[in-house]
C-alpha cells in the first residue's frame, strides 16, 4: 500500500490550486436543483483545503445526486444504486491515504442502500458522506422516497403517500459508534459550506443530511421555509456552528446546542419544523474501523513468504530420513 511522502511534499511546493482545478464538465442538473449548491460547496472545500485531486475520490451511487463525481476533476467512482458506501469503504480500507467523499441520495442511501447506511455509521471509517435529500426520486421521474412527507402525490402514490417520512437523523443517531451528524439546507450556502468543512475535518464518518430543493418534482415545497427564516433553527455552539453577523441577523431562530451531547442531539433530530440546521452530534474519539484493522500496513514479499511457510509447516509431512 502506498504513501508517497515525496509526492506530498512536491504538491506543497506548487501553486495553490484554484476552483478550475476541481471542475470537470458542465453539470446537467435542472436549474434550481440543490445539487448545484452542493457541488459548488465541495469544489470550494477542495480548493480551500488544497486537496491533491489525484488523492481525492468521490464515490456515489445512482440517482441525480450521484452524478456529482463526474463534475469533479478528482478520481471518482459512480457505482451502483445503493452501494456507494461499501465501495467507499473498500477504497478507504485499501488506501487510507486517500480522501474519500460519498454522494448519495435519499433513495440511494435510505431505501435501497439502507443496510449499508446503518453499518457504515457503525464502521465509522474516515469518509465524508453527503446525503442529498430532496425527499423524492428525481432520476426515475417522481416516486416517493423514504423521506417524502405523508400525503406526497407521486407516480406510485397518485392518492398521496401512505406513511410518515423516515427521519434519517434519528436513525443515524441511534447507531452505535456514530461520530458526526449534521443537517444543512441548500439555500444557506454559507452554513452549508461551514458544516461541510467541519464534516471534512472530522476523522471518522461524517454524515451530513443536506435538505435540498427539487424544482422539477417538488416545486415550491420548501418555499415557506425560504420565505420565513424563523422556520429554520440554527444550532450554535463553540464546538459547532459559529454564525457570521449576516447569517445571525437573518436567521434569528437559534438554539444553543452542544454537539457532544448525544441525548440532546436525539431531541434536536426529532424536530421537523422549524428545520434544525447545524452540527447535531460530534464525537472525535469514536473508534475507526480502518484503524482497528491496521489498513495500509506495509507488507513485504518476505513477510508473505514467512507467513506462508509457517502455515504450510502445519500441514507438511516431511520425507523420512533414512
Amino acid at each position, binding site marked *: 500500500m502506498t504513501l508517497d511522502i515525496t509526492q506530498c511534499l512536491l504538491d506543497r511546493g506548487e501553486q495553490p490550486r484554484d476552483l478550475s482545478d476541481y471542475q470537470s464538465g458542465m453539470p446537467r442538473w435542472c436549474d434550481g436543483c440543490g445539487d448545484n449548491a452542493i457541488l459548488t460547496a465541495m469544489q470550494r472545500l477542495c480548493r480551500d483545503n488544497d486537496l491533491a485531486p489525484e488523492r481525492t475520490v468521490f464515490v456515489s451511487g445512482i440517482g441525480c445526486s450521484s452524478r456529482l463525481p463526474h463534475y469533479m476533476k478528482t478520481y471518482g467512482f459512480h457505482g451502483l444504486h445503493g452501494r456507494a458506501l461499501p*465501495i467507499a*469503504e473498500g477504497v478507504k480500507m*485499501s488506501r487510507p491515504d486517500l480522501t474519500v467523499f460519498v454522494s448519495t441520495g435519499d433513495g440511494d442511501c435510505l431505501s435501497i442502500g439502507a443496510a449499508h447506511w446503518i453499518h457504515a455509521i457503525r464502521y465509522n471509517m474516515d469518509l465524508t458522506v453527503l446525503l442529498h435529500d430532496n425527499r423524492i426520486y428525481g432520476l426515475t421521474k417522481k416516486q416517493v422516497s423514504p423521506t417524502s412527507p405523508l400525503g406526497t402525490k407521486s407516480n406510485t402514490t397518485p392518492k398521496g403517500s401512505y406513511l410518515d417520512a423516515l427521519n434519517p437523523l434519528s436513525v443515524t443517531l441511534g447507531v452505535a459508534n456514530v461520530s458526526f451528524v449534521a443537517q444543512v439546507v441548500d439555500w444557506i450556502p454559507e452554513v452549508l459550506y461551514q458544516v461541510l468543512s467541519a464534516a471534512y475535518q472530522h476523522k471518522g464518518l461524517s454524515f451530513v443530511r443536506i435538505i435540498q430543493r427539487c424544482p422539477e418534482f417538488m416545486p415550491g415545497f420548501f418555499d415557506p421555509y425560504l420565505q420565513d427564516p424563523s422556520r429554520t433553527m440554527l444550532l450554535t455552539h463553540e464546538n459547532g456552528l459559529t454564525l457570521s453577523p449576516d447569517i445571525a441577523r437573518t436567521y434569528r431562530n437559534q438554539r444553543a446546542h452542544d454537539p457532544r451531547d448525544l441525548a440532546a442531539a436525539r431531541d434536536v433530530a426529532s424536530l421537523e419544523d422549524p428545520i434544525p440546521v447545524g452540527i447535531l452530534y460530534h464525537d472525535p474519539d469514536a473508534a475507526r474501523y480502518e484503524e482497528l484493522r491496521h*489498513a495500509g500496513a506495509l507488507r513485504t*514479499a518476505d*513477510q508473505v513468504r514467512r507467513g506462508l511457510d509457517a502455515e504450510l509447516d502445519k500441514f*507438511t*509431512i516431511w520425507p523420512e530420513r533414512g
Partner: protein
Amino acid sequence: MSTETIREADAATAAKRVTRLEEHIVEIISDSGEGAQRCGQSFAAIAAKSGNGIWTVEIIPAEIQPPARSIAGASGNRIRLGSKRITNGGDEVDLAVAFNEQVLIGRVRAGELKPGATILLERMWRDDRDPRIAKSYVEAVDELVAAGYRVLEIPMEKECRKLVVDPRRGKNMFVLGMLCSIYSFDLERGREQIAITFGKKDRKVIESNVKLLEAGWAWAEENLDFKYDIPGIPAGEAQVVMNGNTALALGVLASGMEICAMYPITPATSASHYLSEIFERVGGIVHQAEDEIAAANFAIGASYAGKCAVTITSGPGYSLKQEALGLAVMAEIPLVVVNVQRGGPSTGQPTKPEQGDLLSVIFGSHGDAPKVVLAVDGIEDCFYAMITARKIAETFNTVVVVLSDASLATAQQPFARPTFSEEWLVPPVDQSEIASGRSPYDWDPLTGLFRRFIPGQPGGMHTVTGLAHDRASHVAYDHKSNEEGLRNRSMKIAALQRTLRTPEVHGDPDGDLLVIGWGSTRGAIEEAVDRLRADGQRVSSLHVRFIQPMPSGIGDIMKRFRRVMTVESNWSDRVGDAVVDDENRRYAALAMLLRARYLVDVDCWTEVSGRPLKPARIAEALRAQLAKEVAR
C-alpha cells in the same frame, strides 16, 4: 462374508489374520460433538505419513446440534486410503466405526456401506437403562447381521471408563488406537499425531489422549482376529495434507491479494475462517461485511483503489453479488470471486456438493457481462488457482470467478508442498504520473487490454462508471461508444483464450467415447475411465479447467471419438421421462455449452445426490452409454 458378534473374551485367543489390501474405505461416525471428525482426520494424517494415498470426506449433519442418536445426525469422516495416490472418495465403505446404531442406520440407508462391510459398533447401548434404546439397538444389530454385515460390538465406553471420567470425550482416541492396530500402523505415529492435534493444550490432555490411544490399540490387538496391511510408499518430497478451503485461503495469501471481503455462508465460510486467522500476519485483512452485496462492492472498491481483492461465497451469496460483478465487468476493475458451490436453487442443500452454478456464473449479471470462469479440479488446484486468478484479473482488468464445491471444501488430500515464488505477488500499486493525452480506457485495438489508472496517479483523474462510457470514461449513450466498450470487454476474453493450453486427454487420443468433466469430479471420472479401459473399452476423458474462455483444441479432440458425453453433478432431464424428448431436454451445464460451441451432439449423465460422484456410478453410466452406441 462371515457374520459374528465378538465378545471381549471370545476373540482373545483367536489367531490374527493379516489381509494385504490395495485400498480400503473407512468411515467413523458419531453424534456431532463426539469427536468422530477429529478421529477421522487424525487417522487420515497417520495414513498419509505412513505413505498411503488418502482422500477424506467430511460427513456433516445439516444442523449444529442435531438430536443425539438420530439417523440424520451422523457426523464424522470417511477416509479412503490406498497404496497409490487417491483422487476421490471412492465408492462404498469397507469398514465403519459407529458410536451408536442410529447414525449407522442413516449411512446404511443412504447406501454408503459395501455389502458385507465390517462394522465396529459401540455396544454400550445394549445395556442402556432406557429399554427403548436397548431395544432399538438390539433390533438394529439383528437387522444389520441379517443383512450380511459383519458386526463387531465393541465396549468402547466401558474400556475408556477405566482411564477417564467422561468417556464421551476421548472415545474417539480409543477408536483411533483400534484403527492403528487394524491397519497395522506404527503406534508411535498415533502418539505424534495426538501431540500435533492437542499441541496447544495442556500436557495432561495429551497424556490422557495417548493413554486412550494405547488402550484402543491394545484392545484391538487382544480381541480382534483380523488386521489389514495397505503398503504405503513414503513420499520422497515434502507433502502437505489439507482440505480445499484451507488451500484456497493459503492461495489467497500466496497470490499477493490483501483484502478479502465476505459474508458468512456455507460451505465457503471455512476458507474465510482460516484466512481470518492467518491473513493479518502478512498485512492482509478479512472484512466480514453486512451482507453479500456489500462484500462484493467493498472488494470492488478495494480493487479499484489498489491491489486486486477477493470475495468468497457460495451459491445464494453469488446470486446476490451478480449486479456488483456486472459493475466490475463494465468499469473493468479486477476482482476475484470464489464460489464454493452447494446444492441449489434457493437455500437448497447448504452442506452438500453440486455443480449447479456454472451457467449462472458464465451468463449471470444482466446484459453482456463477460468474465473469466475457472473451475478447480482438485485440492492442490484450490491453492494455485487463486494465484492464477489474481494474475488474470489484474492483467485483463476483469472479473475472474473461481468455482469450487462443497466436496472439495472439506475433502483432504496430500500434494507437493508449494514453494513460494515472488512472482506470485503483485507489484506495488502504480502511483506514477499519467502522461498527457492518455485515456483511462486506452483499449488496445487487437486485444481490448489497457493499463488502468489508479487513484493517486497524478494526471489520471477520471470517474469510473457503470453507465456506458467512452475511452475517457465519460458517460456516453451513443451507439458507437457503447459498441466499442462491448467489443473490447469481450475481446479481452478471446485474447486470454489465445494464451491457454489445450487440456490433456486422459487415456488414448481417440476411441469410442470421450467423457468431459469439470471441477471436483476429475478424480472420480478418471478412475471410472481407468476401470473401463482395464476392461478393454475405448474410453478417454478430458477435464476442462478454464470454462470461459474455453481453450482451443477441444473441438478437434472431440472429433476423434465416436461419441462425446459430459459427466456432471447438476440437473439434466432424464431421457426416460415421458414428457422429455430431444427438443425439450434440458442438458447438463457443460454439455449445453459444448453443444452450443462445437455443434457436436454431446450427451450427458448427471447425478445430483448431494454427495460426491462415485467412480462406480460413473463407470456404470459410461457402460450404459457404450451399450447405447452398440444398439444404434
